């Protein structure tokens, strides 16, 4: 395996060829906010929070999908990046209806954590508050589109780990929504195995268990660690 050498915020670092810039940041303790990324699932670069500057390139690139290359000079934090990250989170908060006080994820919400980390103390954009219906047709789980940030973790975990591919994204732009099967009520889905993995990986309160009270949503993600380990060490990787 070839080893690549590059600089990360001015510090020389080395990377394996399969490593991404985000892997390197995590390895070297460089803080980088993420929302769509989750260890154990494929990377899609959807939330754009991990954007970094690459010297010589006019475009910002998401660290989660950017492979480490020989001689790269990466900047993870600059005024521009900090401004963009804050704007991104403000836009996420303005896009749907995030009412923390009565949310099941309150206190354990990754959107809340990231908002605090990037310094969101208020939102400068008008809240859109789109009319979104709750899908409570499933006997165990509820989908609240008002809290969805379209990170697609649910789509990926259902496809890549459970193998059911119940979830997908329908529509475009601000009208995009995660849908079960072909946009039929979740409770009537033929493909859903009711495993609940989507609920466990959801970073906000968009997917939650019926029985969880506000602020009581605890995520159990051990299955992702088992799966990642088995894939790296064992014979049943895909």
């Amino acid at each position, binding site marked *: 395996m070839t080893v690549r050498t590059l600089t990360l915020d001015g510090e020389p670092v080395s990377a394996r060829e399969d490593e991404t810039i985000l892997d390197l940041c995590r390895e070297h303790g460089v803080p980088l906010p993420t929302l769509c990324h989750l260890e154990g699932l494929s990377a899609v670069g959807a939330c754009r929070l991990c954007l970094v500057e690459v010297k010589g390139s006019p475009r910002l690139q998401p660290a989660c999908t950017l492979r480490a290359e020989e001689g790269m000079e990466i900047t993870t934090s600059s005024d521009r990046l900090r401004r963009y990250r804050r704007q991104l989170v403000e836009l996420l908060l303005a896009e749907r209806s995030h009412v923390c*006080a*009565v949310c099941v994820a309150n206190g354990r919400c990754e959107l809340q954590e990231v908002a605090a980390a990037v310094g969101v103390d208020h939102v400068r954009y008008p809240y859109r508050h789109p009319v979104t219906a*709750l899908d*409570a047709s499933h006997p165990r789980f509820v989908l609240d589109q008002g809290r969805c940030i379209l990170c697609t973790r649910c789509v990926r975990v259902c496809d890549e780990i459970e193998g059911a591919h119940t979830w997908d994204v329908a529509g475009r732009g601000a009208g995009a929504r995660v849908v079960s099967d072909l946009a039929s009520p979740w409770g009537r889905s033929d493909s859903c195995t009711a495993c609940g993995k989507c609920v466990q990986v959801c970073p906000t309160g968009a997917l939650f268990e019926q029985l969880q009270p506000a*602020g009581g949503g605890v995520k159990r993600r051990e299955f992702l660690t088992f799966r990642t380990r088995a894939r790296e060490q064992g014979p049943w990787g895909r």
Partner: protein
Amino acid sequence: MSQRLVIDPVTRIEGHARITIQLGDDGEVADARFHVTEFRGFERFCEGRSFRELPAITSRICGICPVSHELASARACDALLAVDVPDAAKALRKLVNLAQLVQSHALSFFHLSSPDWILGYDSDPARRNVLGLAEARPELARQGIRLRQWGQQVIEAVAGRRVHPGWAVPGGVARPLSAAARERILAGLPEALATARQTLGWFAGTAADHQEEARVFGNFPSLFMAMVGPEGELEHTDGKLRFVDERGAVLADQVEPRDHRAWIGEAVEPWSYLKFPYYLKHGYPGGLYRVGPLARLNCCARAGTPLADEALAGFRQLGRGAVLSSFHAHHARLVEILYAVERIEQLLADPGILSDEVCAVALRSRRRAVGACEAPRGTLFHDYEVDRDGLVERVDLLIATGQNNLAMNRTVAQIARHYLSGQRLEEGLLNRVEAGIRAFDPCLSCSTHAAGKMAMVVELLGGQGELLDAATR
């Protein structure tokens, strides 16, 4: 020519109000109206949510009594699930409701109302508040603040947070009580009990000084409604409804809260966002009834704890049949605080309260349900209808202050008749109108589910509706 007086806004109450005093052609008070001018629409934005979220959402109606809304809501949700809540959860809900009663009554009595008696109705309004009280009677102020603090600490020890705990859930409560939390509550209990006894003794002893208020502040015959236990004892969480008349005779007993619509009608008036509930059989406005501490003590056969039973016997001396003056609600609050502290001790003495079985798990089984409890200000109803998936289709909240609405109007008219002279709003009148309203401890954010700050506006209007005088606090 008739005239109208307006007091706007009303101070030291929970919410924002305006009072209009209407004079007749003879210059005498013809009518008085307590307007609630705000609107929040809580019932609408619960629609479409899962019923399981309602205890958390509806508790946000009020920061003073979030526990009452949470409990009434959780009880309605229990009924939607059609489950029997585990005994430990029932006991813990009772305990938290009583703690909330202590803190809210302490706030009303010590912080909001006692400055009127200690400093005098006609003293400088800038000093007639809890800070002035702390200067004039530091020990009383300290005791009041400590008592309220203990009530809040009990809520925190059991439910995890003082305000909006998110702890009562459909089927029970989210967490069992720890032995350490029980000890923390018990540690503060003797002081709370001593304060309750001492304050009650002092206030009962000043009855002779308050004869005028007792005669004028909402002193009229009416019906009363409150929740009682199976034997008519005082009960704030798990009881059924009883109506009594002005003689104290029971009109209806052990009425299921879910049938309340068969007993209570609601009239609407164009000048207020509050609705006007009345006892259906007696019609509107003849079916005027009052709820709250005064009504609870008038309705119950006994308190059910030794010291409170003694205090109740003393309280009953204030009237023949039912105690009719709303001024005596202050006295009633102190009796209830005493009861609550004693009852909390009883509940904690049962080892079963530490059980870790505190929630019944079930799917939605009913489409419509009602939950009720006694909030500090009176009986609170949450009435829900949900669809097959448990999404809320209709929320109807019947709030204590709303039920006292007619009685508050009549109180203002009574006080204005007694104290108004000429066509000017004198300070003495304003102060007494406010104090009369305050005896009901109204919570307007709850009753309209309205946002607002504590404020009072009073207007004096002539017979043609012309403004003669206005005063703002």
